[in-house]
């Protein structure tokens, strides 16, 4: 019980951040709560490094939430972000869900490759391959004429 409470308090903010970034702030708290409810039921299976395991549970719940809704909740970003950040987010959102997931687990949720691989249920080697490809596609998305013209129109408006 004490161990679970310690893990809960330690990992709650990161599970919440993961849920918010993938399902929006409205569903984030419910998904986080459900994640820890499942974790409690399966506490016997909880590994010593619990975060990747918890994010794996949260990931399944996010997917289930997406299946139940036809529209995804939009996340509000601060209006004062500079164009480079807006452009990067736009490029990211133009990628497949799988590519976004691989990139954000590292860049936004601060996981090591082995931990991110555990969340996705693949091997670390497979994860590195996916990460490499996702980075290449993100780079390509940033270089497409769509973004060049967007950049120009931003400057002139």
């Amino acid at each position: 019980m004490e161990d679970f409470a310690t893990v809960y308090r330690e990992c709650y903010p990161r599970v919440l951040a993961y849920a918010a970034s993938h399902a929006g702030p409205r569903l984030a708290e419910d998904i986080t709560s459900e994640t820890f409810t499942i974790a409690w039921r399966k506490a016997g299976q909880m590994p010593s490094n619990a975060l990747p395991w918890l994010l794996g549970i949260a990931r399944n719940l996010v997917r289930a939430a997406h299946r139940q809704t036809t529209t995804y909740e939009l996340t509000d970003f601060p209006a004062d972000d500079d164009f480079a950040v807006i452009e990067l987010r736009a490029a990211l959102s133009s990628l497949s869900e799988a590519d976004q997931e691989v990139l954000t687990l590292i860049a936004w949720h601060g996981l090591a490759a082995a931990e991110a691989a555990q969340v996705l249920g693949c091997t670390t080697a497979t994860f590195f391959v996916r990460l490499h490809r996702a980075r290449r596609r993100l780079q390509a998305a940033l270089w497409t004429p769509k973004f060049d013209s967007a950049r120009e129109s931003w400057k002139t408006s």
Partner: protein
Amino acid sequence: MEDLLKDLAQAKPPSPEVDRDRMERDLARITALPQERPVRKQLVRRFAPLLVIGVVIVLAVVLLPAPPQPVQPASPQKWWHELTRQRSLMIVGDPAAPYGVYFDSKTDRWLAANQQVTVIQKDGEVRAFPLTRDGNTWENAGSPATVPQVGGNHLVRIGPMKPAVQKTAVSGFQMSLHSQARFDSLDSLPAEPRELRKALETIVGNDAYRIGSLAMELISANVRDDQRRAAFELIKTLDGARFLGDVTVLDERRGIGVAIAAPATFQFSDVETQLVVDPQTGLPIVKKDVITTSQFGLPAQMPISEVDYLLLEQVGFEPIVPQDVPVNGEVESPIIER
């Protein structure tokens, strides 16, 4: 490329504020819920009647007299076909500022009594990667075509590998490519763990790791299911072996695993070999060597080499080899002399 991830980190949306009251309320509610009982007991209780029926059916089938065997026409040679993917990593570059390289290739192996055909370095590639998020990169080192091993005497060639085809006539059944272990017959190997251990000891001696390695090779060979199960049970009984229980590997496939301590490599210490098999068939899913402590900035439990078993099947047709690759020609290894 590395900067791209740093830029992306800057684009992270703001993390939501944690509502401490709700967090503590949820914790109190969650911990008041019942926890799952161990799965094994539940399963046994639930499936006990089915188990009894199954045993009765099996006994009835075993005790019935066998029908006379129909005369079979002469069949083509049977081959045991293994398609595996090998991945491993090595530390390279300047020892003061190292980075990693990944070797990634497939091996197609066709094995029959007294002969084997192997296609190695299929779809093979060596790629560089930084050891940590902010670590040194191959690009920073000037993208050299060959890079020195850290702690070794060879160079590693970056880029695609060239496939090679090897046909050999061997006496009996040879285990893996690099193994000297051969069996005159696989069928005669014991299906009882202790007896199997004695049989394997006669080949590799009383060395837990070598016995375990050979048992792992047997699991991927064309042996009967009961022999495969005995090999897995044997590994579990070796000194220092650890049963990993249920594990999820390779895109959510589930299996049961076992780990044995492995000898250090020229770059890594604290290594263990983990094998995960399909609990239904006993066939292997993945075998990997992982480091049990953080080394070179790589986290503990990181695989340093891995074999994914993509296909294990008995086939009645001749091996399929690439037509444009000379048989038993020179193998262009990505590891070359300095």
